[in-house]
C-alpha cells in the first residue's frame, strides 16, 4: 500500500554535498577574503552557509510550512540560528538534511491583528549518521487582520 496522505506531506530528507566552489562563492558574497575559505582545498562551511540547503531540497516537494496558509507578503525572517556539534562540515562532506516544523504560536499584534511565530528546524547528519549541525529559523507573519 502506498504512503498515507499524512506521510506524503512530510518533508523528506535530502542529500546536500558540500562543494568547494559553492563555499568560495558564498564566502566571497559575504565579504570574506580569508584563505581558509577561498583557497583551502577542503574549506569548512561559513557559519550561515547551510542556508544554501535550499538548492538541494526537492523543488515543489513537501515543505515544513505546508498547510499553514501563510501570506508571503507578510512574512518576516525574525531569527536564524546554526549550532555545530564540533567543527563545522567541510567541502567533500555529504550531509543529509531533514527539515521539520518545530512550533507555531500566535500572539496579538499591537494593531489588533494576530501575529504568528513559526519555527522550522533542519537537522544535518554526516555519512555516519551523526548529527553535525542544526539550523533553526523563526518566521513571523505580521498583522493578520481580524476576520
Amino acid at each position: 500500500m502506498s504512503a498515507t496522505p499524512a506521510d506524503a506531506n512530510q518533508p523528506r530528507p535530502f542529500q546536500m554535498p558540500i562543494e568547494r566552489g559553492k563555499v568560495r562563492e558564498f564566502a566571497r558574497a559575504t565579504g570574506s577574503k580569508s584563505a581558509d575559505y577561498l583557497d583551502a582545498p577542503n574549506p569548512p562551511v561559513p557559519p550561515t552557509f547551510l542556508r544554501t540547503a535550499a538548492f538541494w531540497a526537492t523543488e515543489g516537494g513537501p515543505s515544513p510550512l505546508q498547510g499553514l496558509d501563510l501570506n508571503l507578503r507578510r512574512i518576516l525572517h525574525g531569527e536564524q540560528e546554526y549550532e555545530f556539534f564540533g567543527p563545522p562540515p567541510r567541502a567533500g562532506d555529504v550531509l543529509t538534511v531533514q527539515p521539520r516544523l518545530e512550533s507555531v504560536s500566535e500572539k496579538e499584534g499591537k494593531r489588533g491583528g494576530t501575529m504568528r511565530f513559526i519555527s522550522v528546524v533542519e537537522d544535518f547528519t554526516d555519512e555516519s549518521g551523526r548529527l553535525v549541525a542544526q539550523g533553526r529559523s523563526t518566521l513571523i507573519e505580521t498583522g493578520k487582520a481580524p476576520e
Partner: protein
Amino acid sequence: MSHSEGDVLEERVFGPVTRTDFVRYQGASGDFNPIHHDEIFAQSAGFPTVFSVGMLQAGYLATYVTDLLGPDNVRRFKVQFREQVWPDDVLTCNGTVVAVRTDATTGEKVADLALEVRTQRGATAIRAEATFAL
C-alpha cells in the same frame, strides 16, 4: 590570540552595500525573494526601494567573527533581525566576549560572544549571539 571575559573585539566596516551585493548574495544563497532586487515589486509592497537580505548582513557578521576567532571554531551562531538595511548603508560589526567557560557536554573551552551589526544611522540591524571554541 587569547580571549577573556569582557574583551571588546575590534570593529570592522562593510559596505557601503549596493544592489549588486544583494543580488550576488541571493545568487550564492538561493533566496530569490524579489523584494531584495526588483524595484517595482518592492514599491508595490509599500517600500521606497529594495532592501538587503537579512542573511547578507548576518553573513558579513559571520565573516567578521570567523576572521577573529577561526572558521573551524564556530559552535553556535544566532542572529536576530531588527532593522532593515538599505542600498548605500555602511555596516559596522562589533562584538564583546560575554563569558569564557568549559562546555558541559563537550568539555571544550569556549567563548560566548554578543555581536551586533549597526548602520551609519545608529540603528541595530542585527543583534547576535555566538559561541566559539578557543
